[in-house]
């Protein structure tokens, strides 16, 4: 007899909380900004995300997109930066949104441009299958010249040979676009990184990179060392060089944009903050007496470049005040505890275990995700945790017919240092930093991502191999044998989803 009342009660609570959560949202608002749409973006905006609401804060006030170079096509394919960096999706794009976009435009949206919005430019562009990596995993093609070049254009010394052993997209073996083309090129496929919270992402920068003992890249304008955490392979030094490169690549511009245009893009990117703002059952996340690290305003106000200290000043602040409160908040607080304090054996992770910390290392998630507010690595953060090298822990076996990504075989030369845990022959879907550095020890190392606004921008990892936060947590549980219970996984997911 009590069941109907119980169900009704839960339903009523859910409706109330959902109303709280959606107070930020306007169901009729435009969620996909088209280039040249002349929209005015408010100072604070909110968008539906998985289980709640994403907050987007323009710290400099409302943004007029009319003629703004971030929102205006400056190249030849109709694209603007906003195509792949949408406020609705945490200044990135989700695979779901791309599929919706494909259906709404019959594949004509410039985000599907042949150059890198398809699996390979030579494929028939009208077919959905030619864009499968973008539509299924949110992956953009990144064509990289091989071998990599020094700043003066000369080829870099490379410590390994690379072969294509599986090529589902056909691009790496293409005579026109592949490794044996007139301009040898390796195509890898990666998620667009969020262009938000960038004061954190670009912070840091020491003269010598802790992980390699070599000089950091420098800002070509100032000569100062940079943090090298911007791109998944750290190939661009600054927001300006990245914007220019994106213009010439992703937008296929024939002429470089003006200095003013680049400055305006960087100015916009540098003032956008995104974070989850509300939960469908938990309501607003930023509440008096609550955790101080949640919501986009906290990101605006916090100091960048600070190493988290688990005991006194943790990576995302303290969640003590939510312990023992309602179901959702208590779960987030437990998840925060797992992230900060649950020790496990961190092993065989290049540029973590291999830099003098020992293998294995009995530590926590926050050991690597140590930068306050974003959870990136405060030092240059390329790490091989097993998302691209086989065994990848995420992909089908090397030769599986279901494989969607290319597979490369890397053979390290005898006089080079081998990969610390995989030796001299490595199979990988993306050599990562090694495609830029030419170093064997860097094969499969990817610069770690910021952990904010996650609920708005699935799938995850640079390879888009985790469709949900559950798959992310499952990956780490398998990879590092964390022995998480189902309840603990749910707590971690709630915590990550609240960031």
């Amino acid at each position: 007899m009590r069941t109907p009342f119980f169900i009704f009660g839960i339903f009523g609570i859910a409706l109330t909380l959902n109303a709280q959560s959606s107070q930020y949202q306007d169901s009729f608002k435009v969620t996909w900004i088209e280039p040249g749409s002349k929209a005015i973006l408010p100072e604070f905006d909110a968008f539906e995300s998985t289980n709640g609401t994403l907050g987007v804060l323009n710290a400099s006030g409302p943004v007029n997109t009319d003629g703004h170079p971030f929102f205006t096509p400056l190249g030849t394919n109709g694209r603007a930066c906003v195509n792949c960096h949408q406020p609705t999706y945490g200044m990135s794009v989700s695979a779901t949104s791309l599929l919706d976009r494909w259906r709404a435009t019959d594949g004509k949206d410039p985000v599907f441009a042949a150059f890198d919005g398809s699996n390979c430019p030579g494929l028939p562009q009208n077919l959905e299958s030619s864009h499968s990596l973008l539509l299924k995993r949110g992956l953009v093609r990144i064509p990289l010249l091989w071998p990599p070049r020094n700043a003066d254009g000369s080829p870099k010394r490379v410590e390994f040979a690379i072969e294509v052993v599986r090529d589902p997209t056909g691009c790496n073996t293409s005579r026109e676009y592949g490794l044996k083309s007139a301009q040898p090129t390796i195509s890898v496929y990666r998620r667009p990184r969020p262009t938000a919270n960038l004061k954190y992402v670009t912070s840091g920068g020491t003269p010598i990179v802790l992980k390699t003992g070599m000089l950091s890249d420098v800002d070509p304008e100032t000569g100062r060392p940079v943090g090298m955490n911007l791109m998944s392979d750290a190939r661009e030094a600054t927001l300006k060089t990245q914007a220019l490169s994106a213009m010439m690549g992703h937008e296929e511009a024939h002429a470089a944009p003006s200095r003013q245009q680049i400055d305006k893009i960087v100015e916009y990117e540098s003032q956008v903050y995104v974070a989850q703002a509300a939960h469908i059952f938990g309501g607003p996340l930023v509440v008096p007496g609550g955790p101080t690290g949640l919501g986009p305003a906290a990101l605006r106000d916090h100091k960048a470049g600070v190493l988290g200290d688990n005991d006194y000043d943790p990576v995302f602040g303290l969640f003590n005040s939510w312990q023992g409160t309602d179901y959702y908040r208590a779960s987030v607080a437990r998840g925060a505890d797992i992230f900060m304090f649950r020790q496990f054996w961190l092993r065989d992770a290049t540029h973590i275990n291999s830099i003098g910390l020992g293998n294995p290392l009995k530590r926590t998630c926050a050991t690597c995700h140590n930068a306050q507010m974003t959870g990136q690595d405060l030092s240059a953060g390329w790490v091989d945790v097993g998302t691209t090298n086989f065994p990848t822990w995420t992909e089908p076996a090397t030769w599986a017919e279901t494989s969607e990504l290319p597979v490369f075989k890397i053979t390290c030369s005898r006089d080079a240092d081998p990969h610390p845990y995989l030796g001299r022959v490595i199979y990988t879907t993306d050599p990562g930093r090694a495609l830029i550095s030419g170093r064997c020890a860097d094969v499969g190392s990817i610069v770690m991502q910021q952990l904010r606004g996650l609920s708005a921008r699935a799938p995850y990892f640079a390879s888009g191999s985790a469709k949900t936060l559950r798959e992310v947590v499952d990956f780490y549980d398998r990879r590092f044998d964390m022995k998480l219970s189902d309840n603990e996984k749910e707590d971690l997911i709630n915590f990550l989803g609240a960031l």
Partner: protein
Amino acid sequence: MRRAWCFGLFLVGAIALGQQRSFVSCPIVRDTKTVPCFLAEYDGEVYYLGIQQDITAEFHPPQLKHEVLVEGRVAEGPRVCGGVPLKPVSISVLKEVNLACNTLRPPEPGIEAPAAPRGPGPSSRPLETAKAPRESLTGPHEFTVLYAFNDDYLDFAGDGVVTEAAAYAKRIGAPSVKVAGYRATTLLSNGNRLIEKSGLDERRAQNIATVLRGLGVSGVTVEWKSEAEPGDGLADASRRRVTILVTP
């Protein structure tokens, strides 16, 4: 008289060598209720090398999946974490993967890790920043960067040395900064010799010179001694080095 003097020297050397351990083996990780201890076994004895700390600690633990070259001196005192302590101790992770090195032992009652002066690792407290350059330095000064065996990785300590050398050279406007690279031999306790790979002396020197120039030091010259330094089983780790001579 001269013979007695020589015998005395031999005796001192033999005693010193007797306390010295230089060997290659798989490391052993011993978990405890706090941080893991790192051990290694040689000639029927287990030696304690150190504990997990952070990157700024003097001791950098070895790695499973790799053999380790241990060069240390048997220290006085009780066993630590179940092993005979070596102090000072130099650890070199050998580069090639060895899957046989995979021993991780669970905690055991009565075996405890010593307290970690720098805490258990990253995110437990702020890292110690590199030391500020010594203002008292004057005149010619030689800085020494040490390396693990067969390695040219500039670690956290080496980073501090190069940074200090660069700061000193810039402070005094040194017209000459001479970088010299070396590779060395290790005399193992079993009488075998390990010689670092050829060319490493040059690579070490060139890397340091590149870093110094990148830090704004001018007048950097580079030399290297191709021949490996001899090993005596006592101070071999100190010969795997690059020296930076800053002359006013």
